[in-house]
Protein backbone atom coordinates (compact mmCIF):
# COMPACT_ATOMS: atom_id res chain seq x y z
CA UNK A 1 0.00 0.00 0.00
CA UNK A 2 1.34 3.50 -0.84
CA UNK A 3 2.59 5.67 1.95
CA UNK A 4 1.48 9.27 2.49
CA UNK A 5 4.57 11.33 3.29
CA UNK A 6 4.64 15.06 3.93
CA UNK A 7 7.73 17.27 3.85
CA UNK A 8 7.26 20.54 5.66
CA UNK A 9 9.64 23.44 5.02
CA UNK A 10 9.22 26.66 7.05
CA UNK A 11 9.63 29.48 4.52
CA UNK A 12 12.70 31.77 4.90
CA UNK A 13 12.65 30.61 8.48
CA UNK A 14 15.01 32.94 10.35
CA UNK A 15 13.90 36.00 8.38
CA UNK A 16 10.18 35.28 8.79
CA UNK A 17 10.56 34.69 12.52
CA UNK A 18 12.32 38.04 12.90
CA UNK A 19 9.73 39.84 10.75
CA UNK A 20 6.88 38.27 12.73
CA UNK A 21 8.48 39.24 16.06
CA UNK A 22 9.09 42.84 15.00
CA UNK A 23 6.13 44.32 13.06
CA UNK A 24 8.12 47.50 12.24
CA UNK A 25 10.45 45.69 9.82
CA UNK A 26 7.88 43.48 8.13
CA UNK A 27 7.35 45.64 5.06
CA UNK A 28 11.07 46.19 4.45
CA UNK A 29 13.76 44.01 2.87
CA UNK A 30 15.32 42.08 5.77
CA UNK A 31 18.22 39.67 6.06
CA UNK A 32 19.37 37.72 9.08
CA UNK A 33 23.12 37.71 9.41
CA UNK A 34 26.03 39.38 11.14
CA UNK A 35 26.36 43.12 11.56
CA UNK A 36 27.97 44.84 8.59
CA UNK A 37 29.70 47.31 10.98
CA UNK A 38 32.16 44.55 11.87
CA UNK A 39 32.50 43.82 8.13
CA UNK A 40 31.82 40.16 8.45
CA UNK A 41 28.54 38.41 8.58
CA UNK A 42 26.88 36.13 6.13
CA UNK A 43 23.30 36.25 4.96
CA UNK A 44 21.67 33.30 6.72
CA UNK A 45 18.14 34.06 5.50
CA UNK A 46 16.23 36.74 3.60
CA UNK A 47 12.55 37.69 3.46
CA UNK A 48 10.39 37.99 0.32
CA UNK A 49 11.15 41.73 -0.07
CA UNK A 50 14.91 41.10 0.02
CA UNK A 51 14.68 38.28 -2.55
CA UNK A 52 13.51 40.77 -5.19
CA UNK A 53 16.94 42.45 -5.04
CA UNK A 54 18.75 39.25 -5.97
CA UNK A 55 20.21 38.75 -2.49
CA UNK A 56 21.58 35.23 -2.08
CA UNK A 57 21.91 33.17 1.11
CA UNK A 58 25.58 32.73 1.96
CA UNK A 59 26.86 36.00 0.54
CA UNK A 60 28.39 38.63 2.79
CA UNK A 61 25.99 41.17 4.31
CA UNK A 62 28.00 44.05 2.87
CA UNK A 63 27.53 42.54 -0.62
CA UNK A 64 23.78 42.30 0.02
CA UNK A 65 23.68 45.93 1.13
CA UNK A 66 25.30 46.99 -2.12
CA UNK A 67 22.37 45.40 -3.95
CA UNK A 68 19.82 46.97 -1.61
CA UNK A 69 20.93 50.12 0.24
CA UNK A 70 17.89 50.23 2.57
CA UNK A 71 18.36 46.61 3.62
CA UNK A 72 17.77 45.87 7.30
CA UNK A 73 20.19 43.34 8.78
CA UNK A 74 19.17 41.57 11.99
CA UNK A 75 21.51 39.51 14.15
CA UNK A 76 20.43 35.89 14.52
CA UNK A 77 18.68 34.81 17.73
CA UNK A 78 18.96 31.02 17.76
CA UNK A 79 17.05 30.58 21.01
CA UNK A 80 14.02 32.12 19.31
CA UNK A 81 14.41 29.95 16.19
CA UNK A 82 14.74 26.79 18.26
CA UNK A 83 11.55 27.75 20.12
CA UNK A 84 9.59 28.24 16.88
CA UNK A 85 11.00 24.98 15.51
CA UNK A 86 9.90 23.15 18.66
CA UNK A 87 6.38 24.67 18.47
CA UNK A 88 6.08 23.70 14.79
CA UNK A 89 7.10 20.17 15.68
CA UNK A 90 4.43 20.03 18.39
CA UNK A 91 1.86 20.90 15.72
CA UNK A 92 3.13 18.08 13.47
CA UNK A 93 2.90 15.66 16.39
CA UNK A 94 -0.86 16.25 16.63
CA UNK A 95 -1.16 14.26 13.39
CA UNK A 96 1.47 11.50 13.67
CA UNK A 97 4.24 10.10 15.86
CA UNK A 98 6.50 9.65 12.82
CA UNK A 99 8.08 13.09 12.66
CA UNK A 100 11.68 13.26 11.47
CA UNK A 101 13.59 16.53 11.54
CA UNK A 102 15.93 17.45 8.71
CA UNK A 103 17.54 20.55 10.14
CA UNK A 104 15.86 23.25 12.20
CA UNK A 105 13.18 24.21 9.67
CA UNK A 106 12.32 21.00 7.80
CA UNK A 107 10.51 17.84 8.85
CA UNK A 108 9.17 14.72 7.24
CA UNK A 109 5.87 13.34 8.48
CA UNK A 110 4.43 9.93 7.70
CA UNK A 111 0.66 10.30 7.97
CA UNK A 112 -0.19 6.97 6.32
CA UNK A 113 -1.71 5.72 9.56
CA UNK A 114 -3.58 8.97 10.28
CA UNK A 115 -5.61 9.44 7.11
CA UNK A 116 -8.72 7.78 8.56
CA UNK A 117 -8.72 10.23 11.47
CA UNK A 118 -7.62 13.43 9.75
CA UNK A 119 -8.33 12.99 6.03
CA UNK A 120 -6.13 12.67 2.96
CA UNK A 121 -2.49 13.79 2.79
CA UNK A 122 -3.53 16.99 1.04
CA UNK A 123 -6.15 17.77 3.71
CA UNK A 124 -3.65 17.17 6.52
CA UNK A 125 -1.05 19.32 4.75
CA UNK A 126 -3.49 22.21 4.32
CA UNK A 127 -4.61 21.95 7.94
CA UNK A 128 -0.98 22.03 9.13
CA UNK A 129 -0.22 24.99 6.87
CA UNK A 130 -3.19 26.98 8.24
CA UNK A 131 -2.46 25.99 11.85
CA UNK A 132 1.18 27.10 11.63
CA UNK A 133 0.09 30.43 10.13
CA UNK A 134 -2.51 30.94 12.85
CA UNK A 135 -0.49 29.77 15.87
CA UNK A 136 3.03 30.81 14.91
CA UNK A 137 2.48 33.68 12.48
CA UNK A 138 4.87 32.23 9.85
CA UNK A 139 4.28 30.33 6.61
CA UNK A 140 5.24 26.86 5.46
CA UNK A 141 5.43 25.01 2.14
CA UNK A 142 4.47 21.34 2.23
CA UNK A 143 5.10 18.62 -0.33
CA UNK A 144 2.84 15.53 -0.27
CA UNK A 145 3.95 12.33 -1.96
CA UNK A 146 4.47 8.58 -1.61
CA UNK A 147 8.16 8.82 -0.65
CA UNK A 148 10.46 11.19 1.20
CA UNK A 149 12.46 12.36 -1.84
CA UNK A 150 9.47 13.50 -3.89
CA UNK A 151 7.82 15.03 -0.82
CA UNK A 152 10.95 17.18 -0.34
CA UNK A 153 10.96 18.16 -4.02
CA UNK A 154 7.29 19.11 -3.66
CA UNK A 155 7.94 21.45 -0.73
CA UNK A 156 10.63 23.24 -2.77
CA UNK A 157 8.31 23.90 -5.70
CA UNK A 158 5.80 26.48 -4.53
CA UNK A 159 6.84 29.12 -2.01
CA UNK A 160 5.63 30.62 0.18
CA UNK A 161 2.57 29.15 1.92
CA UNK A 162 1.57 26.34 -0.45
CA UNK A 163 0.93 22.62 -0.74
CA UNK A 164 2.19 20.58 -3.71
CA UNK A 165 0.94 17.07 -4.50
CA UNK A 166 3.23 14.60 -6.29
CA UNK A 167 1.42 11.32 -6.94
CA UNK A 168 2.20 8.15 -8.87
CA UNK A 169 0.08 9.55 -11.72
CA UNK A 170 1.80 12.92 -12.09
CA UNK A 171 5.39 12.50 -10.85
CA UNK A 172 6.82 12.03 -14.33
CA UNK A 173 5.24 15.30 -15.47
CA UNK A 174 6.20 17.27 -12.37
CA UNK A 175 9.54 15.80 -11.26
CA UNK A 176 11.27 14.43 -14.34
CA UNK A 177 11.57 17.85 -16.00
CA UNK A 178 13.46 19.31 -13.01
CA UNK A 179 17.25 19.73 -13.08
CA UNK A 180 19.12 16.69 -11.68
CA UNK A 181 20.78 18.99 -9.13
CA UNK A 182 17.40 19.47 -7.40
CA UNK A 183 17.48 15.85 -6.26
CA UNK A 184 18.66 15.22 -2.71
CA UNK A 185 22.35 14.33 -2.58
CA UNK A 186 23.17 15.62 -6.04
CA UNK A 187 25.75 18.26 -5.16
CA UNK A 188 27.92 20.37 -7.44
CA UNK A 189 30.46 17.63 -8.17
CA UNK A 190 27.85 14.97 -8.96
CA UNK A 191 25.94 17.47 -11.11
CA UNK A 192 29.15 18.19 -13.05
CA UNK A 193 29.73 14.46 -13.65
CA UNK A 194 26.13 13.87 -14.78
CA UNK A 195 26.16 16.89 -17.08
CA UNK A 196 29.40 15.66 -18.63
CA UNK A 197 27.51 12.55 -19.73
CA UNK A 198 24.51 14.55 -20.91
CA UNK A 199 22.28 13.81 -17.92
CA UNK A 200 20.73 17.14 -17.00
CA UNK A 201 17.26 16.32 -15.65
CA UNK A 202 15.85 13.94 -13.06
CA UNK A 203 13.99 12.14 -15.87
CA UNK A 204 17.24 11.49 -17.76
CA UNK A 205 18.78 10.20 -14.53
CA UNK A 206 15.77 7.93 -13.97
CA UNK A 207 16.03 6.47 -17.46
CA UNK A 208 19.82 6.15 -17.52
CA UNK A 209 21.37 2.69 -17.54
CA UNK A 210 21.93 1.52 -13.96
CA UNK A 211 25.29 -0.20 -14.63
CA UNK A 212 26.53 2.99 -16.31
CA UNK A 213 25.50 5.08 -13.28
CA UNK A 214 27.26 2.62 -10.94
CA UNK A 215 30.46 2.94 -12.99
CA UNK A 216 30.32 6.74 -12.94
CA UNK A 217 29.04 7.36 -9.39
CA UNK A 218 29.78 4.15 -7.48
CA UNK A 219 27.14 3.00 -4.98
CA UNK A 220 25.49 6.42 -5.27
CA UNK A 221 24.52 5.64 -8.83
CA UNK A 222 22.12 3.00 -7.59
CA UNK A 223 20.77 5.24 -4.85
CA UNK A 224 20.15 8.26 -7.12
CA UNK A 225 18.55 6.04 -9.77
CA UNK A 226 16.14 4.80 -7.11
CA UNK A 227 15.42 8.33 -5.93
CA UNK A 228 14.71 9.56 -9.46
CA UNK A 229 12.27 6.70 -10.08
CA UNK A 230 10.34 7.30 -6.88
CA UNK A 231 11.47 4.03 -5.34
CA UNK A 232 12.92 5.47 -2.16
CA UNK A 233 11.60 3.41 0.74
CA UNK A 234 13.49 4.91 3.66
CA UNK A 235 11.07 5.17 6.56
CA UNK A 236 10.20 8.33 8.42
CA UNK A 237 11.65 7.77 11.86
CA UNK A 238 9.51 7.66 14.97
CA UNK A 239 9.54 10.81 17.06
CA UNK A 240 12.56 10.76 19.38
CA UNK A 241 14.31 7.83 17.71
CA UNK A 242 16.96 10.10 16.22
CA UNK A 243 18.34 10.71 19.70
CA UNK A 244 20.84 7.85 19.31
CA UNK A 245 24.10 9.60 18.49
CA UNK A 246 25.95 8.45 15.40
CA UNK A 247 28.33 11.40 15.09
CA UNK A 248 29.13 14.65 16.86
CA UNK A 249 30.30 17.71 14.99
CA UNK A 250 30.62 21.45 15.03
CA UNK A 251 30.94 23.87 12.18
CA UNK A 252 31.34 27.62 12.08
CA UNK A 253 31.03 30.42 9.54
CA UNK A 254 34.00 32.64 10.27
CA UNK A 255 34.01 36.35 11.01
CA UNK A 256 36.55 36.75 8.22
CA UNK A 257 37.74 34.55 5.39
CA UNK A 258 40.94 32.71 6.36
CA UNK A 259 43.86 32.22 4.04
CA UNK A 260 46.61 30.67 6.18
CA UNK A 261 47.18 27.23 7.63
CA UNK A 262 47.82 28.79 11.08
CA UNK A 263 44.32 30.34 11.15
CA UNK A 264 42.76 27.04 10.06
CA UNK A 265 44.64 25.29 12.89
CA UNK A 266 43.28 27.78 15.45
CA UNK A 267 39.71 27.21 14.27
CA UNK A 268 40.11 23.42 14.22
CA UNK A 269 41.37 23.48 17.80
CA UNK A 270 38.41 25.61 18.88
CA UNK A 271 35.91 23.27 17.18
CA UNK A 272 37.73 20.12 18.38
CA UNK A 273 37.48 21.31 22.00
CA UNK A 274 33.71 21.51 21.64
CA UNK A 275 33.43 18.15 19.85
CA UNK A 276 35.69 16.43 22.40
CA UNK A 277 33.80 17.90 25.37
CA UNK A 278 30.50 16.71 23.93
CA UNK A 279 31.96 13.24 23.29
CA UNK A 280 33.04 13.04 26.94
CA UNK A 281 29.61 14.31 28.10
CA UNK A 282 28.00 11.40 26.27
CA UNK A 283 30.70 8.86 27.31
CA UNK A 284 31.70 8.21 23.71
CA UNK A 285 34.91 8.03 21.71
CA UNK A 286 35.44 8.60 18.00
CA UNK A 287 37.33 6.31 15.67
CA UNK A 288 37.14 8.61 12.63
CA UNK A 289 37.49 12.36 12.14
CA UNK A 290 35.82 14.23 9.27
CA UNK A 291 36.49 17.83 8.22
CA UNK A 292 34.25 20.12 6.16
CA UNK A 293 35.72 23.09 4.32
CA UNK A 294 33.67 25.69 2.47
CA UNK A 295 35.37 28.47 0.50
CA UNK A 296 34.19 31.98 -0.28
CA UNK A 297 32.49 30.77 -3.48
CA UNK A 298 30.39 28.46 -1.27
CA UNK A 299 31.97 25.30 -2.70
CA UNK A 300 32.23 22.63 0.03
CA UNK A 301 34.33 19.55 0.44
CA UNK A 302 34.40 16.80 3.09
CA UNK A 303 37.27 14.45 3.89
CA UNK A 304 37.74 11.93 6.67
CA UNK A 305 40.43 9.67 8.13
CA UNK A 306 40.74 7.08 10.90
CA UNK A 307 42.33 7.85 14.23
CA UNK A 308 45.21 5.61 15.39
CA UNK A 309 43.18 4.74 18.49
CA UNK A 310 39.65 5.75 19.44
CA UNK A 311 39.73 9.07 21.25
CA UNK A 312 37.70 11.82 22.90
CA UNK A 313 40.67 14.18 23.22
CA UNK A 314 40.56 17.61 21.60
CA UNK A 315 44.29 17.56 20.84
CA UNK A 316 44.12 14.23 18.95
CA UNK A 317 40.97 15.21 17.03
CA UNK A 318 42.46 18.60 16.08
CA UNK A 319 45.78 17.03 15.00
CA UNK A 320 43.97 14.52 12.79
CA UNK A 321 41.81 17.31 11.32
CA UNK A 322 44.96 19.31 10.47
CA UNK A 323 46.61 16.24 8.96
CA UNK A 324 43.61 15.69 6.66
CA UNK A 325 43.48 19.38 5.77
CA UNK A 326 47.16 19.67 4.86
CA UNK A 327 47.03 16.52 2.75
CA UNK A 328 43.81 17.26 0.88
CA UNK A 329 43.09 21.00 0.62
CA UNK A 330 44.87 23.22 -1.93
CA UNK A 331 43.77 26.71 -0.83
CA UNK A 332 42.40 27.70 -4.24
CA UNK A 333 40.16 30.23 -2.49
CA UNK A 334 39.97 31.80 0.97
CA UNK A 335 37.93 29.72 3.41
CA UNK A 336 34.62 30.97 4.76
CA UNK A 337 33.42 28.06 6.89
CA UNK A 338 35.05 25.09 8.67
CA UNK A 339 33.67 22.05 10.42
CA UNK A 340 34.98 19.09 12.41
CA UNK A 341 32.96 15.93 12.99
CA UNK A 342 33.73 12.87 15.11
CA UNK A 343 32.28 9.76 13.44
CA UNK A 344 31.98 6.02 13.98
CA UNK A 345 31.49 6.43 17.68
CA UNK A 346 32.01 3.72 20.28
CA UNK A 347 31.19 3.68 23.99
CA UNK A 348 33.96 5.09 26.16
CA UNK A 349 34.40 1.87 28.10
CA UNK A 350 34.82 -0.40 25.09
CA UNK A 351 38.17 -2.25 25.27
CA UNK A 352 40.80 -0.96 22.85
CA UNK A 353 43.47 -2.86 20.98
CA UNK A 354 46.79 -1.33 22.11
CA UNK A 355 50.00 -1.31 20.09
CA UNK A 356 53.65 -1.10 21.12
CA UNK A 357 54.39 2.10 19.17
CA UNK A 358 51.89 4.49 20.77
CA UNK A 359 52.64 6.04 24.18
CA UNK A 360 49.44 5.07 25.98
CA UNK A 361 50.54 6.58 29.29
CA UNK A 362 50.68 9.96 27.58
CA UNK A 363 47.17 9.34 26.20
CA UNK A 364 45.87 8.53 29.68
CA UNK A 365 47.52 11.66 31.19
CA UNK A 366 45.96 13.77 28.44
CA UNK A 367 42.54 12.26 29.20
CA UNK A 368 42.89 13.22 32.87
CA UNK A 369 43.99 16.72 31.88
CA UNK A 370 41.04 17.31 29.54
CA UNK A 371 38.56 15.98 32.10
CA UNK A 372 40.00 18.41 34.64
CA UNK A 373 39.53 21.23 32.13
CA UNK A 374 35.87 20.14 31.69
CA UNK A 375 35.39 20.36 35.48
CA UNK A 376 36.98 23.81 35.70
CA UNK A 377 34.84 25.10 32.86
CA UNK A 378 31.68 23.66 34.40
CA UNK A 379 32.42 25.47 37.65
CA UNK A 380 34.00 28.72 36.50
CA UNK A 381 32.90 29.19 32.89
CA UNK A 382 34.31 28.42 29.47
CA UNK A 383 37.01 31.13 29.63
CA UNK A 384 38.43 29.87 32.95
CA UNK A 385 41.00 27.74 31.08
CA UNK A 386 42.02 28.34 27.50
CA UNK A 387 44.57 26.89 25.12
CA UNK A 388 47.32 29.34 24.20
CA UNK A 389 46.63 28.88 20.48
CA UNK A 390 43.04 30.14 20.96
CA UNK A 391 44.26 33.37 22.57
CA UNK A 392 46.33 34.40 19.55
CA UNK A 393 43.39 35.75 17.56
CA UNK A 394 40.38 36.37 19.81
CA UNK A 395 38.25 37.70 16.97
CA UNK A 396 38.62 34.41 15.13
CA UNK A 397 38.47 31.97 18.04
CA UNK A 398 36.90 33.96 20.87
CA UNK A 399 33.54 32.14 20.88
CA UNK A 400 32.34 29.12 22.82
CA UNK A 401 31.18 26.70 20.14
CA UNK A 402 29.93 24.16 22.68
CA UNK A 403 27.40 26.51 24.28
CA UNK A 404 26.74 28.98 21.45
CA UNK A 405 24.15 27.75 18.98
CA UNK A 406 25.43 26.07 15.85
CA UNK A 407 22.96 24.23 13.62
CA UNK A 408 24.19 20.78 12.63
CA UNK A 409 23.28 19.33 9.24
CA UNK A 410 21.55 15.96 9.43
CA UNK A 411 22.54 13.03 7.26
CA UNK A 412 19.53 11.57 5.33
CA UNK A 413 20.79 8.05 5.92
CA UNK A 414 21.83 8.82 9.50
CA UNK A 415 25.38 7.56 9.15
CA UNK A 416 24.88 4.37 7.20
CA UNK A 417 26.26 5.89 3.98
CA UNK A 418 28.55 8.90 4.12
CA UNK A 419 28.63 10.47 0.66
CA UNK A 420 31.65 12.39 -0.55
CA UNK A 421 29.60 14.41 -2.98
CA UNK A 422 31.64 17.62 -2.79
CA UNK A 423 34.76 16.26 -4.42
CA UNK A 424 37.53 18.79 -4.94
CA UNK A 425 39.27 18.58 -8.30
Amino acid at each position, binding site marked *: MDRTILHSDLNSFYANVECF*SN*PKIRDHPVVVGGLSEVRQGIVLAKNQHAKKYGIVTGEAVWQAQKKCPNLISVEPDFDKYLKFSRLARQIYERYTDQVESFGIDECWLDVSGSTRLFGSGEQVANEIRQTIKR*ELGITVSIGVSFNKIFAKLGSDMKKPDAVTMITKDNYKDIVWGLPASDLLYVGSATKKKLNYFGIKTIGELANADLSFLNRVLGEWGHVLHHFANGRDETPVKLNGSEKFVKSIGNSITLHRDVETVEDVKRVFYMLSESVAARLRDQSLKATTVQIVVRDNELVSCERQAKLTIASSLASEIAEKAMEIFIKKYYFNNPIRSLGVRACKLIPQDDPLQLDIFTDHQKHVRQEVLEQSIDDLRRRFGYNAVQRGILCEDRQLTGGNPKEDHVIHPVNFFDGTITPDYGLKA
Partner: protein
Amino acid sequence: MAKIPISVIALYASESISLPSYKIPTTSKLLAAYKVIPLRISNQYEETIMVDRIIDIRREASTKVGGLGDRYTCLATRGDVQKQIYIYKDEDEWFLEDHFDR
Protein backbone atom coordinates in the same frame (compact mmCIF):
# COMPACT_ATOMS: atom_id res chain seq x y z
CA MET B 1 2.65 48.29 18.20
CA ALA B 2 4.56 46.40 20.85
CA LYS B 3 3.52 43.82 23.42
CA ILE B 4 2.05 45.37 26.57
CA PRO B 5 3.57 43.46 29.48
CA ILE B 6 1.27 42.71 32.41
CA SER B 7 1.51 40.92 35.71
CA VAL B 8 -1.17 38.36 36.41
CA ILE B 9 -2.70 36.72 39.43
CA ALA B 10 -3.89 33.35 38.23
CA LEU B 11 -5.35 30.05 39.31
CA TYR B 12 -3.00 27.12 38.69
CA ALA B 13 -3.89 23.45 38.44
CA SER B 14 -1.47 21.00 40.07
CA GLU B 15 -1.80 18.45 37.26
CA SER B 16 -2.52 18.74 33.58
CA ILE B 17 -4.94 16.56 31.68
CA SER B 18 -5.12 16.56 27.92
CA LEU B 19 -8.42 17.76 26.52
CA PRO B 20 -9.33 18.84 23.00
CA SER B 21 -9.09 22.59 22.50
CA TYR B 22 -11.49 24.77 20.49
CA LYS B 23 -14.47 23.85 22.64
CA ILE B 24 -15.97 26.49 24.92
CA PRO B 25 -15.33 24.95 28.28
CA THR B 26 -16.25 25.49 31.91
CA THR B 27 -13.63 26.74 34.34
CA SER B 28 -12.71 23.30 35.68
CA LYS B 29 -12.16 21.85 32.21
CA LEU B 30 -10.15 24.97 31.24
CA LEU B 31 -7.99 24.54 34.29
CA ALA B 32 -7.44 20.88 33.48
CA ALA B 33 -6.54 21.57 29.85
CA TYR B 34 -4.51 24.72 30.17
CA LYS B 35 -3.30 24.53 33.76
CA VAL B 36 -3.71 28.25 34.47
CA ILE B 37 -6.62 30.73 34.48
CA PRO B 38 -5.96 34.47 34.81
CA LEU B 39 -8.05 36.13 37.53
CA ARG B 40 -6.68 39.65 37.84
CA ILE B 41 -4.17 41.58 35.75
CA SER B 42 -2.15 44.74 36.37
CA ASN B 43 -0.48 46.81 33.70
CA GLN B 44 2.68 48.92 34.00
CA TYR B 45 0.61 51.87 35.34
CA GLU B 46 -0.59 49.75 38.31
CA GLU B 47 -4.16 49.70 36.97
CA THR B 48 -6.08 46.57 37.89
CA ILE B 49 -8.31 44.71 35.48
CA MET B 50 -10.56 41.94 36.85
CA VAL B 51 -11.23 38.94 34.64
CA ASP B 52 -14.93 38.10 34.97
CA ARG B 53 -15.22 35.20 32.55
CA ILE B 54 -13.06 33.19 30.14
CA ILE B 55 -14.91 32.76 26.86
CA ASP B 56 -12.28 30.86 24.90
CA ILE B 57 -8.67 29.67 25.00
CA ARG B 58 -6.64 28.69 21.97
CA ARG B 59 -3.07 28.85 20.73
CA GLU B 60 -2.77 31.90 18.53
CA ALA B 61 -0.18 34.30 17.15
CA SER B 62 -0.67 38.03 17.53
CA THR B 63 0.55 39.54 14.27
CA LYS B 64 -0.28 43.00 15.69
CA VAL B 65 2.51 42.88 18.28
CA GLY B 66 4.58 39.90 17.10
CA GLY B 67 3.88 37.55 19.99
CA LEU B 68 2.35 34.11 20.34
CA GLY B 69 1.07 31.72 22.98
CA ASP B 70 -2.19 30.69 24.63
CA ARG B 71 -4.73 33.41 23.84
CA TYR B 72 -7.45 33.89 26.46
CA THR B 73 -10.59 35.62 25.21
CA CYS B 74 -11.96 37.22 28.38
CA LEU B 75 -14.73 39.44 29.62
CA ALA B 76 -12.88 41.87 31.87
CA THR B 77 -13.75 44.88 34.00
CA ARG B 78 -11.82 48.00 34.91
CA GLY B 79 -13.77 50.42 37.03
CA ASP B 80 -17.28 50.59 35.51
CA VAL B 81 -16.26 49.41 32.07
CA GLN B 82 -16.62 45.80 31.03
CA LYS B 83 -15.38 44.61 27.65
CA GLN B 84 -13.92 41.68 25.78
CA ILE B 85 -10.11 41.56 25.69
CA TYR B 86 -7.39 39.13 24.63
CA ILE B 87 -4.73 38.09 27.13
CA TYR B 88 -1.72 36.13 25.85
CA LYS B 89 0.47 33.73 27.80
CA ASP B 90 3.77 32.75 26.17
CA GLU B 91 5.48 30.29 28.55
CA ASP B 92 6.10 32.52 31.60
CA GLU B 93 5.32 35.84 29.96
CA TRP B 94 1.86 37.47 29.92
CA PHE B 95 1.00 40.34 27.59
CA LEU B 96 -1.83 42.26 25.97
CA GLU B 97 -2.20 43.33 22.36
CA ASP B 98 -4.05 46.52 23.14
CA HIS B 99 -4.49 48.89 26.05
CA PHE B 100 -7.82 48.36 27.82
CA ASP B 101 -8.98 51.82 26.73
CA ARG B 102 -8.68 51.06 22.98
